[in-house]
């Protein structure tokens, strides 16, 4: 077996707001192989976004360890951490909030190329056009401001920004739940195509079991900061063990017929 793309062990995070404390992450462990999709599902408030942000080192954990391609991510800081970040990228839950509203599309996609010196300045415009094409957007969008785009277009731009550094792991925090139903399928197809081409591992956060069945190799179910059930997608869907898993499955009106029909164009 190859080394995991990312591996987290015993993650803990407690939030304190006034006298109330919330154990948002309570001994969470997960492993993600290269090119694999692990879905993390759970009801609202179960700690999915907290898990994503913890892996991205957007705040300090209370305990646990994270290794990215075999390197201890929590031991890094400063320039070493910033350099390592190119291998681990994230698409945020709300595309309206995740892009600087004053920036142009070109700048949003160019930033990671510049920060990690991936493409020399003279060829960056071409690289941006290439990335825009990969996410199905026209190259002339580069000069448009972020606020001129629709939600679906913004999420494509966010995906292009995340793909720019050719990461080993992409954390997708409910990448389609803020989008119009009509564009969800397109974005999911795009993500599946990109994964097939680049072999990126996806940590795919969702609360929609229908989507999860279509995209995930394995599933981890979260409730109140803990992983209450984990296994291969087919197994979990065929014989759900935890009550939370069954509740999530019941929330789907009728499951899509077959993953293949749902995803392929």
């Amino acid at each position: 077996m190859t080394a995991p793309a990312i591996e987290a062990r015993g993650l803990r995070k407690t939030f304190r707001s006034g006298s109330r404390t919330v154990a948002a992450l309570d001994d969470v462990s997960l492993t993600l192989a290269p090119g694999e999709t692990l879905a993390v599902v759970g009801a609202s408030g179960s700690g999915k976004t907290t898990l994503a942000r913890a892996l991205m080192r957007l705040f300090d954990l209370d305990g646990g360890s994270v290794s990215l391609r075999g390197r201890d991510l929590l031991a890094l800081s400063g320039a070493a951490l910033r350099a390592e970040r190119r291998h681990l990228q994230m698409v945020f839950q709300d595309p309206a909030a995740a892009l600087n509203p004053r920036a142009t599309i070109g700048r949003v996609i160019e930033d990671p190329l510049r920060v990690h010196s991936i493409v020399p300045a003279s060829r960056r415009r071409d690289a941006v056009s290439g990335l825009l094409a990969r996410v199905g957007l026209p190259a002339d969008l580069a000069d448009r401001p972020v606020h001129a785009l629709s939600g679906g277009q913004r999420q494509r731009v966010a995906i292009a920004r995340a793909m720019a550094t050719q990461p080993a792991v992409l954390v997708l925090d409910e990448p389609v739940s803020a989008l119009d139903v009509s564009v969800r399928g397109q974005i999911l197809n795009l993500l599946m195509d990109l994964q097939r081409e680049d072999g990126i591992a996806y940590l795919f956060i969702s609360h929609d079991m229908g989507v999860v069945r279509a995209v995930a190799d394995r599933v981890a179910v979260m409730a109140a900061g803990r992983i209450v059930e984990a296994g291969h997608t087919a197994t979990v869907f065929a014989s759900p063990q935890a009550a939370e898993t069954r509740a999530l499955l019941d929330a789907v009106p009728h499951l899509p017929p077959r993953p293949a029909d749902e995803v392929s164009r």
Partner: protein
Amino acid sequence: MSGLSRFRGSADGIAGAAVLALLAIVAIAAPVLSPGDPLNIVGAPLTRPFEAWATPLGTDRLGRDVLAMIVHGARTSLTVGLAAALVAIAVGSAVGTLAGLMGGWIDEALMRVTEAFQTVPGFLLALAFVSTVGPSLAAIVVAIALGAWTGPARLVRAEVLSIRERDFVASARVIGMHPLAIAWREVLPHALPPVVALASVIVAGAILTEAALSFLGLGDPNRATWGGLIAEGRSVLRSAPFLSIWPGLALVVTVLGVHLTGEGVVAALALRRSQA
């Protein structure tokens, strides 16, 4: 609708901008409009306004041209006002951004310093600084900025505290952007609009402080200043009130122009906010 066209839709803004534009032209063209040193004696002392062609606004006790001194005083007033406001906003924004982004003890320390400066009246600070360092243009600019940077600092810090929680800042961290680049490129541009709205108040305050300093004889002695002119006219206020009235009028018109322009800027910004 762009911010500029909204500014043009504000009557206050247009009036203020027109006044300021006129003043700026006068200030820039001062050497052409009244060549030579305005402090030279050109006529009989205390000539009344509209008596002599060469000195339409009259002369002071030494026989210096009041109009020339007012025209050159506009240079001093506007230069000092704008420079002091610029320094105050630059320093305040840097302090506020640093405090808001770093948090912890750095924030704590910077805010204590800010509060310490705020407890001392700005004019007292300026007075103390100029009387220690000596009256030069640069010293006066620094002296005024010393009392004016705290407002922008607190405002920017408050803005930064909310901006830093937004996802696009997290996204900048995720792609590995340097913290200073995040502060400069992602956070500061969003924190500045309210400071721009405050700028007119700071500029107007700076112009008045400069006038007050020169009134007290702490202005640059080699330059004609409105405050200095008013002080000069004080001893002959009964016999020749025009000596104080002309520079006083210039001061009022300038400060009014700055405030009205500020109103226009606020209108432009406010509409943009409600649209976003």
